[in-house]
């Protein structure tokens, strides 16, 4: 078993070396080594996951020194399989996509190194190994995004990613230092064990260790998972090769969710940190989604969609649903990877068919199709609001009835309801000749998705956190006072329902040509179109920092 654990990150590392060394001899054919290694890594990861599923207990492989240890536990093997899978798909896609690019072999070498770094990160058994992998991922991504050495734009945006990642490294380093100072070991299992034995330990300024480390780890996760204010790099890194975008959006950006899960034994001892995690996730989810809707560039729109999804993932951690966040990151990784790899095809299709819906009059007179019709809005509104609740409640009652005792689950169900209702609301908007058929299909799809999501997330919970007491502790750490909880849920419900009513009346006004956009509405639009001026602020800050640095150099030119 030990050998298999070590072999997993060693395979892509060895492949990188061999691919690079054999390139002068084999030319572009050297990438076959990388592909073979990708297949072997995936198989090995599947075997390890098989061991974990068959009940093999968690193992810690000690390298014999302060660092270099690897951990075999459900989280690491599950993430390894995801990384190996996505990495192989990206490599296979790149075989033809990148063939005309300069540095074809170098690209595969970098992909191999990135895979190795990601595998080491998820399997790191000590803090130093985790820090090394965490840091190297940022560096490798910088060079992958800037694969085209002639493109200054690719490097400029690659640099944004690099510097945000470096910024995110810093809190993780500080967390590692605090943990080492307190528990006198780098080993993660030992740290968690000692923390469980003494959860009230204090660190600098008499802050509880768990709170300090929890906050620092969360900050590191925020930078890696593009949370609001640390998100600017994500939608702007589209100058890099498409396979890198796919790898980044499907895998690397999810590292924040992984990190919070890795430190779950710390979060069970925290009091208020998860609330802040939830708030940051919520803000990111809302802002990411709003910005996504206002884009007209498919890749940038996907970038903001990822930001919104990362917000949801972090939010799930914030409500204590850690295993759900892992499921979310895997599901998101798969569908976002597919979307990115398909963007080229979509753009190509759009060149031939603009996809703009035709006018009703045109379809009726020219295409001789009957006009589309809509159902009475009251019936549709009732269906829109009631069906998602019914589907969500029944599916959760079926899987885990006790879920309704957890605040986190209620919050997620609430979001499920909003999403479901939004979906049906959008369906109502879609003019169709057979609206009931369309509605039935949408509701059926929604039911399948909800049942699948509920079942799979329940299985993830059992697999990743088999101790029910521990899972309960996580929810408890994220919980707030019941009175406040009810007030907040009521408030958010009111805001959303009011928003829907506003949208409905806005649409009616548009139809009746009564639309008069107020000044505040245009201001809001300007704010969104300038992406909340965050990028402008950073650009201004950077310019001034560089100017100050230059001024200092002039003043101190003598030394």
């Amino acid at each position, binding site marked *: 078993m030990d050998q298999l654990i070590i072999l997993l990150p060693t395979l892509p590392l060895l492949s990188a070396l061999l691919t690079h060394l054999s390139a002068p001899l084999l030319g572009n054919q050297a990438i076959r080594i990388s592909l073979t290694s990708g297949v072997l890594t995936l198989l090995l990861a599947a075997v390890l996951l098989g061991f974990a599923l068959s009940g093999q207990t968690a193992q810690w492989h000690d390298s014999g020194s302060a660092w270099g240890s690897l951990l075999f536990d459900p989280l690491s093997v599950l993430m390894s399989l995801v990384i190996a899978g996505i990495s192989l798909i990206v490599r296979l896609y790149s075989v033809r996509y990148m063939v005309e690019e300069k540095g074809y072999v170098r690209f595969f070498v970098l992909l191999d190194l990135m895979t190795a770094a990601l595998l080491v990160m998820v399997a790191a058994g000590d803090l130093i190994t985790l820090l*090394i992998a965490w840091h190297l991922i940022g560096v490798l991504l910088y060079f992958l995004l800037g694969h085209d050495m002639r493109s200054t734009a690719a*490097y400029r945006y690659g640099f944004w990613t690099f510097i945000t990642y470096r910024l995110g490294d810093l809190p993780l380093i500080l967390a590692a230092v605090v943990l080492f100072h307190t528990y006198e070991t780098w080993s993660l299992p030992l740290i968690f064990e000692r923390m469980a034995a003494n959860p009230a330990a204090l660190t600098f300024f008499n802050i509880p260790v768990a709170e300090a480390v929890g906050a620092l780890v969360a900050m590191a996760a925020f930078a890696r998972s593009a949370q609001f204010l640390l998100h600017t790099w994500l939608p702007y890194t589209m100058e890099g090769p498409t396979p890198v975008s796919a790898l980044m959006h499907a895998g690397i950006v999810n590292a924040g969710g992984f990190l919070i899960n890795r430190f779950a034994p710390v979060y069970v001892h925290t009091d208020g940190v998860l609330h802040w995690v939830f708030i940051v996730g919520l803000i990111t989810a809302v802002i990411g989604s709003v910005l996504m809707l206002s884009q007209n560039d498919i890749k940038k729109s996907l970038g903001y969609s990822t930001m919104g999804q990362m917000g949801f993932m972090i939010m799930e951690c914030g409500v204590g649903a850690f295993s759900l966040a892992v499921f979310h990151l895997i599901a998101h990784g798969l569908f976002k990877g597919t979307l990115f790899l398909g963007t080229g095809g979509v753009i190509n299709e759009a060149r031939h068919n603009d996809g703009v819906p035709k006018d009703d009059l045109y379809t009726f007179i020219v295409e001789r199709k009957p006009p589309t019709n809509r159902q009475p809005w009251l019936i549709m509104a009732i269906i829109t609001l009631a069906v998602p609740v019914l589907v969500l409640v029944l599916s959760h009652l079926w899987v885990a009835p006790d879920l309704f005792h957890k605040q986190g689950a209620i919050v997620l169900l609430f979001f499920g309801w909003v999403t479901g209702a939004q979906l049906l609301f959008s369906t109502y908007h879609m003019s169709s000749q057979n609206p009931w058929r369309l509605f039935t299909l949408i509701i059926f799809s929604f039911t399948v998705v909800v049942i699948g999501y509920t079942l799979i997330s329940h299985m993830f919970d059992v697999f990743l956190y088999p101790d029910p007491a521990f899972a309960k502790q996580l929810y408890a750490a994220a919980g707030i006072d019941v009175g406040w909880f009810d007030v907040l849920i009521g408030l958010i419900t009111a805001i959303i329902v009011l928003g829907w009513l506003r949208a409905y009346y806005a649409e009616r006004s548009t139809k009746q040509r009564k639309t008069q956009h107020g000044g505040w509405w245009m201001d809001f639009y300007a704010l969104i179109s300038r992406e909340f001026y965050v990028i402008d602020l950073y650009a201004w800050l950077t310019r001034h920092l560089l100017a*100050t*640095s230059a001024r*200092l150099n002039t003043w101190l030119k*003598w030394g």
Partner: protein
Amino acid sequence: MYELIALITIFFLPLFPFSILFNALFERLPDLRLRGLLLLIWPQIGLGLLHFTSANVNLPLAWVTLWAMLTATLYAFRLLALREMNRWISLLATSSWALLWIPALNGEETLTLHLSAFWFSAPLVLLALLAMALQQRFGAAYTGLYTGLATYLPRFSGILVFTVLAVTATPLFPAFFVMLGILLQSEPMIALGLVIVWLLWSWAGARLLQSLLVGQPNNPSDEITDFSAPLTWRYTVLLTGLAISGMYLTGVSA
């Protein structure tokens, strides 16, 4: 007597404004071998002097640590806008050596301290060699004068990338472990300053690489030749050796 030696130490483990001496000296040395030697020996002299005086002079620990931290931050910040590569090297050396005060004042073992100084200096010597290679090819080692080196000097560019990663304390190079060791001996606010210095190094490193390697080549000429294969291998072996020895010899206690 001991106080005087302690004062002289400040020149060798440079603290601003006494750091001016090293930077001026480094800039004025015409010979590359002397520059390399200076990079290797300068902090070792400082550590030797500090070791000699430490038993007899009571340095105000908190103040010197803060002074060292501010010096390191100042020089790291100045790196951001620097375009002359030799100056870049001397400022980074000053920034990193200033940090050695922290473990030195916290009673770190003498051998570990000397090794730490060496791990900071050794990649800087390699970078000085690369700066010389640029001077020989273009007449000056200056960023922004010529771009797109990666396109027509790929071997040189590859070595430059790894060397810059080494000097900016990227894992698995030894400076990374040295920085981790210093962080372990720092007070919380000093640790915060340290990670900011580290961030500034990375920022400056990325700017240096970008301004030299990326973009359309604006000065391609047949007379400008890339590193030969044997020379590239020599650099590769040196960098690999640096990384491997750093992994084994730098002390991050278990």
